[in-house]
């Protein structure tokens, strides 16, 4: 591994909803690896990805795991920069009061700046 990784920033962009595919679950696995590498990690929820954080999920009747619970533990794993795109949120009839964890709401320009500021971006 190379030195001085904490100066390197990695953004993980999640753009799919939680249960119709495994993109969220596997993005989460990648994020936790990045955080364990001591990188400067950020996560952005955009498009249908905002549904990942919707409060009131209940998977009891399906054979699925409620993997989205792990987002609430982000801080324990050193993931502190969590962002959500305001237009994606609002156009789906949601507000940041309906989310399972605290996030920073970004407008279009904020998203653009966030992406531009990163060393690397992974899109899931």
């Amino acid at each position: 591994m190379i030195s001085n990784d904490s100066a390197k920033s990695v953004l993980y962009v999640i753009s799919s909803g939680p249960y119709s595919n495994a993109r969220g679950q596997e993005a989460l696995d990648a994020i936790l690896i990045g955080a364990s590498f001591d990188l400067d990690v950020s996560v952005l929820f955009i498009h249908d990805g905002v549904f990942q954080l919707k409060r009131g999920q209940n998977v009891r009747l399906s054979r699925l795991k409620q993997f989205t619970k792990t987002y609430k533990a982000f801080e324990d794993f050193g993931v502190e920069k969590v962002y959500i795109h305001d237009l994606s949120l609002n156009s789906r009839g949601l507000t940041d009061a309906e989310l399972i964890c605290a996030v920073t709401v970004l407008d279009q320009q904020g998203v653009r700046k966030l992406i531009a500021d990163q060393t690397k971006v992974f899109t899931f």
Partner: protein
Amino acid sequence: MKINLLVTGALYSSQSGYSALSFCRAAVAAGHTISQVFFYQDGVTQASRLSRPLDDEFEAVAQWSDFANECSVPLIICVSAGERRGLMANEQALDYELGHGSSHSSFSVAGLGVLHDASLVADRTVTFK
């Protein structure tokens, strides 16, 4: 420029693999270096040694192998994504007492740390969904 790829689209049903390979060829032709191709999520299916497309269809595994041999590019499938989808090397299949592995020998198996390592030293990381 040093470029590494992340491929997450499925074999056959997605355009991801073909686009990624075309990108790799074009990048090399333009004088760039591909440092690694990492297959994650449904992308691990690109490594199946058992896939048999029709004669006039894209032979993903053979084409990836040729490219990797010609340009000495490591092709890597994610261990956990692969195991979830039935893609694994012989050693893993032995560990699970499952007989032969299902991944082609041109692909090796590693964890997500390897994707991060490669991305941090590359000039660009390009994702093919």
